[in-house]
C-alpha cells in the first residue's frame, strides 16, 4: 500500500526566506509523486510532478522538489517565500499507471511580513 507522511503540520517563515516542506513516501512500486497547493475555500492546484525522469523537478511559482529514492523523500523547496505562498500544501503519491491519488495530511505554510 502506498502512503505519504508530511513531517510538519505547520511551517512558519518570513517573507523572502527559504521554504522547506518535508514529505516521506512509502510505495511498493515505482511511484509517481506530486505536490498540490490549496488556498482557502479553493480546489487543489498542481505545483509539480515526478514520474521517473529527472530527480530534481521544477514546478510553478518557483517551487521545486527532489526525489531521493534512498531516503524515500520528496521535499518541496522554494528559495524565497512570498506572502501569496501562504496556503495548505499536500504531498501526494500514486501507483504508476493508476489514477488513484493518496494524499498526505497537509502542511500549512504561514508567511509573515
Amino acid at each position: 500500500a502506498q502512503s505519504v507522511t508530511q513531517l510538519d503540520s505547520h511551517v512558519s517563515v518570513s517573507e523572502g526566506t527559504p521554504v522547506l516542506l518535508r514529505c516521506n513516501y512509502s510505495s511498493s512500486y515505482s511511484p509517481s509523486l506530486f505536490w498540490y497547493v490549496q488556498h482557502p475555500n479553493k480546489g487543489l492546484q498542481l505545483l509539480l510532478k515526478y514520474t521517473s525522469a529527472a530527480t530534481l523537478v521544477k514546478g510553478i511559482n518557483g517551487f521545486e522538489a527532489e526525489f531521493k529514492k534512498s531516503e524515500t523523500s520528496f521535499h518541496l523547496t522554494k528559495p524565497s517565500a512570498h506572502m501569496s505562498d501562504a496556503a495548505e500544501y499536500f504531498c501526494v503519491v500514486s501507483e504508476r499507471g493508476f489514477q488513484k491519488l493518496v494524499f498526505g495530511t497537509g502542511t500549512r505554510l504561514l508567511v509573515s511580513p
Partner: protein
Amino acid sequence: DAGVTQSPTHLIKTRGQQVTLRCSPISGHKSVSWYQQVLGQGPQFIFQYYEKEERGRGNFPDRFSARQFPNYSSELNVNALLLGDSALYLCASSPRDGNQPQHFGDGTRLSIL
C-alpha cells in the same frame, strides 16, 4: 478554456437525505475522479471513471455511488446521509486513464445537520 466545474458550490442537507453532486471536466478530458476532504484532512479517493466505466473505488460504503455520462460529465450520489458525510467533495479530471496529472475543481461544500 474553462476548468473543472462543480455544482452546487454549497449544499445543506439533513441526516437520512440523499444528495447528488455534479462535475463537468475540462473539455477533452475523459477521466473523472471524486475525492472527499473532511475538514483538516487530506482528500480521500472515492471513485474514478474513464470512458463511462468505473476504474477505481476507494474505501467508502455502498451509500456512495457515481456515474459518468457520454459527454464525460459525472455525478456523485450519496444516500442516507450521515453527519460524518459533511465535507468538501472534489472532482478532478484528466485527459486519459493511467498516470496523468489531475486538474481539480473548487469543490462542493456539503453540510449535514
